[in-house]
C-alpha cells in the first residue's frame, strides 16, 4: 500500500532521481518506433489514427478502427558508427533485431455506418533500441583517464585504508584505482597530493595512447492497453495505460598506454572496464484527442505523462595496471570491484521520471471513403515537444544515506542545467492505388543539450511499400537514421574536458504483417 501511495504521488509530482546525467536522456531522446507503415511516413501519426501505433502516440486514433485486427512487426537494424576523437577517426559497426509494435485491436462492433465507435488495443512495442557499438582511439597529450579517480579520491578526505574498506563509497572507481596503484598519494614539499600514474607521461610532455570501446544492448519496451472512442466521429478521444519495461546493459573498456620508449617512467599501461546492467519497470499514461473540423482534415493533440520507472543497476568494474619502477622492473596489478562489494556485484535501486511529452499533429486524407479503390493518399505531420531537462532521479534503496540523497539532489540540478527541451518534427505521406501503397517520410530530432558546442541531432529519411488484400496486409520500410552526438570518455572538473564527436548511420529494415478479423 505504501508503495502504491508513493507511486501515485510520484506519478503526479513527477519527482525523479538518477545515476549519472547521461542516464537521463536515454529514455527520452530517441526516434519514434512504430509499424512499418508509420515508420515509412517519418513516424508521424499523432492525428492519423487507424494504426496500432496510435496506442503509443495518440490513443484517440484507435477510434478510427471499424474492423478488428492482429499484427506483428519486426526489424533489422545495422549501426555504422564513425567517431572523431582528438583529430583521429575510428569506425565500428554492429547489428541487432529490434521489435516493432505487435498486438490486437478489438472493435466494439464492426458497424461501419455508426457515428459512435469504440476500440481497444492490447499492444507491445520496443520504443527504443539501445544496441550499439562505439569505438575510438587517439593520442592524448593533455589529460588522463586516471585523473577522474585522482580528483574523486583527493576530495574524499578518506585514508587509503578507509577507501579500500568493503564499505567504501567508491567501490567501482577510486578503490580499484588505488588498489592497483593507478592512482596514489605523493608528497611535494611536505604536502600530500593524489596523482594518476599516467600523469607521469603527460607531465614529461609526452602523449598517451587512449582506446575507448563501448557496447550497449537492450531496449525500452512498453506493454500497453489503449482505448479510443467517439460519439459523433467529429471529436475522437482516447487514453493508454502503459507499463514501460527497461532492459539495458553496457560494457565500456578504456585503455591507456605509454607511447614513449622510456622504460623507467613509472607507467606502462592501464585498462579499466565498467560493466553495468539496468533493469526495471514503471507506469505512464497517454491521453489524446483528434478533431475533424471537416472531412479529410484531422488535427490531433496528445500528452504523455512522465514515465515513473523503478530501476535497478547492477555494476562491476575491473581495473588492471602495469607499472614501471625506477629501476625498470615491471609490476602488474588487477582487481575487480567485487573485492570491495562483499564478493558480489553491487546493486543500486533508484526511481527515474522521464520528461513530459506533448504532440501536436495534423493530417490531410484524400478520399475518406470506405471503398478502397477510391482511397488515394494522405499527408501527415507531427510537432513534438519533449522537456528533457525534466528528467529526475531519486534513491529507491531501502535505507538511503544522506550522501546518497544529496547526490541525487545535485544530479537533478545538473540535469536541469545540462539538458534543454527539444522540438521534434515528423512528416510524411502515402499514395495508394487499390491494394498497393507507396510512402515517404522525414523526421528531425533536435539537440537535447544546452551547450551548443555538441551539435547533436537525429535525422531520419524513410520510404516503404505496402500491400493490403484478401484480409491481410504487409508493409516493408527502410529508414536511414543519421545521428550526431558527443561522447565523453571521462570528465574532469579541474581541467578542460575532451570529447569525441560521433556520427551513427543506422539502416533499419522493418516489416509489419497483420490480419483483419471480421
Amino acid at each position, binding site marked *: 500500500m505504501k508503495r502504491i501511495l508513493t507511486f501515485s504521488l510520484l506519478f503526479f509530482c513527477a519527482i525523479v532521481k538518477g545515476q549519472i546525467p547521461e542516464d537521463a536522456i536515454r529514455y527520452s531522446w530517441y526516434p519514434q518506433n512504430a509499424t512499418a507503415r508509420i515508420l515509412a511516413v517519418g513516424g508521424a501519426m499523432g492525428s492519423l489514427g487507424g494504426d496500432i501505433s496510435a496506442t503509443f502516440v495518440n490513443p484517440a486514433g484507435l477510434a478510427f478502427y471499424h474492423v478488428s485486427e492482429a499484427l506483428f512487426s519486426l526489424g533489422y537494424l545495422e549501426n555504422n558508427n564513425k567517431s572523431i576523437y582528438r583529430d583521429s577517426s575510428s569506425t565500428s559497426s554492429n547489428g541487432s533485431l529490434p521489435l516493432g509494435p505487435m498486438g490486437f485491436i478489438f472493435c466494439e462492433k464492426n458497424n*461501419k455506418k455508426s457515428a459512435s465507435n469504440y476500440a481497444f488495443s492490447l499492444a507491445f512495442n520496443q520504443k527504443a533500441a539501445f544496441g550499439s557499438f562505439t569505438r575510438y582511439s587517439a593520442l592524448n597529450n593533455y589529460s588522463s583517464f586516471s585523473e577522474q579517480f585522482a580528483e574523486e579520491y583527493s576530495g574524499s578526505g578518506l585514508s587509503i585504508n578507509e577507501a579500500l574498506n568493503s564499505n567504501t563509497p567508491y567501490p567501482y572507481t577510486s578503490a580499484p584505482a588505488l588498489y592497483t596503484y593507478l592512482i596514489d598519494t605523493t608528497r611535494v614539499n*611536505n604536502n600530500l597530493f593524489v596523482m594518476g600514474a599516467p600523469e607521469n607521461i603527460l607531465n614529461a610532455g609526452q602523449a598517451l595512447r587512449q582506446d575507448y570501446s563501448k557496447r550497449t544492448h537492450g531496449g525500452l519496451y512498453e506493454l500497453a492497453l489503449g482505448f479510443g472512442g467517439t460519439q459523433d466521429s467529429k471529436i475522437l478521444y482516447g487514453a493508454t495505460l502503459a507499463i514501460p519495461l527497461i532492459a539495458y546493459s553496457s560494457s565500456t573498456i578504456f585503455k591507456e598506454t605509454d607511447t614513449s620508449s622510456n622504460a623507467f617512467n613509472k607507467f606502462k599501461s592501464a585498462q579499466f572496464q565498467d560493466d553495468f546492467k539496468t533493469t526495471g519497470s514503471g507506469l505512464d499514461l497517454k491521453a489524446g484527442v483528434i478533431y475533424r473540423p471537416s472531412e479529410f482534415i484531422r488535427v490531433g493533440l496528445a500528452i504523455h505523462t512522465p514515465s515513473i520507472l523503478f530501476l535497478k543497476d547492477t555494476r562491476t568494474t575491473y581495473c588492471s595496471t602495469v607499472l614501471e619502477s625506477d629501476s625498470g622492473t615491471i609490476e602488474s596489478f588487477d582487481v575487480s570491484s567485487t573485492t570491495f562489494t562483499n564478493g558480489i556485484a553491487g546493486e543500486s535501486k533508484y526511481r527515474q521520471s522521464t520528461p513530459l511529452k506533448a504532440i501536436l499533429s495534423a493530417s490531410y486524407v484524400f478520399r475518406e471513403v470506405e471503398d478502397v479503390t477510391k482511397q488515394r493518399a494522405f499527408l501527415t505531420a507531427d510537432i513534438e515537444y519533449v522537456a528533457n531537462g525534466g528528467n529526475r532521479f531519486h534513491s529507491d534503496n531501502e535505507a538511503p544515506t544522506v550522501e546518497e540523497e544529496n547526490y541525487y539532489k545535485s544530479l537533478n540540478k545538473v540535469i536541469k542545467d545540462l539538458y534543454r527541451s527539444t522540438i521534434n518534427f515528423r512528416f510524411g505521406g502515402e499514395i495508394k492505388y487499390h491494394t498497393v501503397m507507396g510512402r515517404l517520410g522525414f523526421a528531425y530530432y533536435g539537440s537535447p543539450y544546452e551547450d551548443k558546442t555538441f551539435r547533436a541531432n537525429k535525422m531520419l529519411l524513410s520510404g516503404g511499400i505496402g500491400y493490403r488484400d484478401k484480409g491481410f496486409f504487409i508493409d516493408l520500410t527502410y529508414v536511414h537514421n543519421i545521428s550526431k552526438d558527443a561522447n565523453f570518455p571521462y570528465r574532469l572538473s579541474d581541467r578542460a574536458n575532451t570529447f569525441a564527436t560521433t556520427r551513427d548511420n543506422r539502416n533499419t529494415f522493418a516489416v509489419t504483417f497483420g490480419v483483419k478479423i471480421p
Partner: protein
Amino acid sequence: MTLNMIISYLDSGKNSNFILQSPNDHFMKSISLILLMFSFALLSCNSAFKSMQTPDDVYYSVPLQEGIVKVEPETRSHEENYIRMQSRHSTWRNMNNDYTDAYYDPYHYGYNYSYYYNPYYYSFPIFCCNTCLSYSIPINSTPRMTNLGSYYNTSTKVVNSKTGQIQTFTFKNAYNNSNQSSKITRGNLFGNSSSYSGSNEGGGRSYSPSNSNSSSSGSGSSISRPSRY
C-alpha cells in the same frame, strides 16, 4: 512476478541484439512460434475477405454530414436480464433455488461429503514461509556516481611556463579536443617546487585525509593493497 519474467527475458538481450554469425536459437524459436500463430490466424481470417475488400481504417471514417446512423441501445426484458445474471453467478441462482436438498442440487454436488469431492477443498493448512530466515551477503548499494562538478567545468588551471605560477582561466565551454591546442595546455597541477607553497592558492589535487594513516601501503583494513617492489 510476470513483469520480472518479461524483464529477465528482455534483459537476456536475446531479442534485441545478436551476433550476426550466431543467431540465437531461443529467439528464433520464439519468432517462429509467433509467425506460425499469425499464419494460422491468416488462414482462418482471410477466407472471410475473399469476396470483399480489405478495409483500411487509416482512410475510412464515417462522413460528418450524412450517412450517420444512430444506433439505439439494445433493450432486454427483465426476465431475460435475470436469466443472464443467473447464468453468470451462483448468487443469483441461489436466490431462487428449487433444490432444497443439497444432495440433488446440481450446483453443490459433492460439497457435503466432508468436502471430499469438493475440488476447492484442501484438508491441510496452507501457509507461506514468509518468516523463514536465511543468511544473505549484504549487497553494496552505492549509486553509479560521477563528479558532478565536472559538468560545470568552465575553468581550467594551468601553470605559467615562465613564472611557474598556477593560474585559473575561466571561459565558457573549456574543451581541449586537439593535441595541437595552443589555447589550453597541460600544466602540472602541483606547480614547481619554488612556486608551490603548500597553501590553497594553487589548487591542484591536494589531499587531506581524515586520519594520519595515509601511507601508500595500507594496513589494518579488511582489504589491503598488494605490496610493491
